[in-house]
């Protein structure tokens, strides 16, 4: 089993540095792209999983690597390959949301997005007296569903910005680079989107206290 994996690694150029693999892939050795695929599937998977619904992760990550292959000749080697790949991954996720939004197919979360469940969740989070209890709460599926439900109410643009800047802690400049937008655009959207998210949470509190 190990030797098979070893052969696959050699065949896909896994021992070579990124730059060497990229130059050879661009020169026509397409099979070596598998080396980059193996090396970065977790990196891309993590980004994609954080942004798109579970059922679209495989398809989106697939699209990221095909796009990366197509754009490989434009990679300038000035930034690390992982960073360049991250921009493709983030933009692909944004495209997913744009596509879902245009088809009005934005998922609103799991079955727990019912008002009753949301109220229970709010009550438990606000009543959490210790950090451990709070951490346990946020690990529950209800929280993930509620997060999904809250983000689903935002436009694809605001959703991406709020996720990158507020939830993941990227700076405005980093988010702008990842999305390929101007910093001013991201800054304005970040403020607006956060206000919108807080309004959604306020509504949730309204339900809870009603």
């Amino acid at each position, binding site marked *: 089993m190990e030797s098979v994996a070893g052969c696959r690694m050699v065949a896909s150029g896994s021992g070579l540095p990124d730059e060497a693999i990229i130059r050879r892939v661009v020169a026509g050795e397409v*099979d070596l792209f598998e080396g980059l695929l193996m090396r970065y599937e977790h990196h891309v*998977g993590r980004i994609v999983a954080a942004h798109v619904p579970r059922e679209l992760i*495989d398809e989106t990550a*697939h699209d990221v690597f*095909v796009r990366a292959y197509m754009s490989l000749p434009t990679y300038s080697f000035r930034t690390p390959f992982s960073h360049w790949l991250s921009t493709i991954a983030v933009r692909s996720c944004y495209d997913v949301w744009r596509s879902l939004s245009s088809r009005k197919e934005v998922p609103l979360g799991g079955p727990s997005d019912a008002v009753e469940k949301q109220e229970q969740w709010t009550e438990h989070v606000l009543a959490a007296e210790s950090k451990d209890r*709070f951490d346990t709460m*946020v690990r529950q599926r209800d929280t993930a569903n509620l997060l999904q439900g809250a983000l689903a109410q935002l436009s694809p643009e605001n959703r991406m910005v709020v996720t990158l800047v507020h*939830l993941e802690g990227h700076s405005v400049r980093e988010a702008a680079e990842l999305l390929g937008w101007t910093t001013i655009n991201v800054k304005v959207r970040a403020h607006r989107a956060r206000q919108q*998210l807080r309004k959604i949470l306020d509504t949730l509190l309204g339900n809870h206290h009603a």
Partner: protein
Amino acid sequence: MNTARREEQIDTLEHALMRAHQVKMQDAPHFSPEWAQDVMRDVRRQASREPPSSEVSRVIWRAAAVVAVVSTLLVGSVLAWTAGHGDDDFFVLLTMATADSTFSTLLPGEP
């Protein structure tokens, strides 16, 4: 309800969602070997279908170079022609060409 208290509660909920997202980010999905094979199949298909972008850009640069050479030849031949016919002829041609233009009516001192 007190506004400050409500803002505090919204902060708590926002923090909970932030932590939930961070938890989600820690779980990298595991792709199956079939998924990797599918990606590579698609990559090979793309490679056989379309020329890589570097090839396309090479074609564009070649076309641009041809256009540049043709333009230089054209400008060169116009200059050579005007030199052969003298400056006066060229001035007459230029005057005739611009005689009806709106620019000439805006010249100061003209009625």
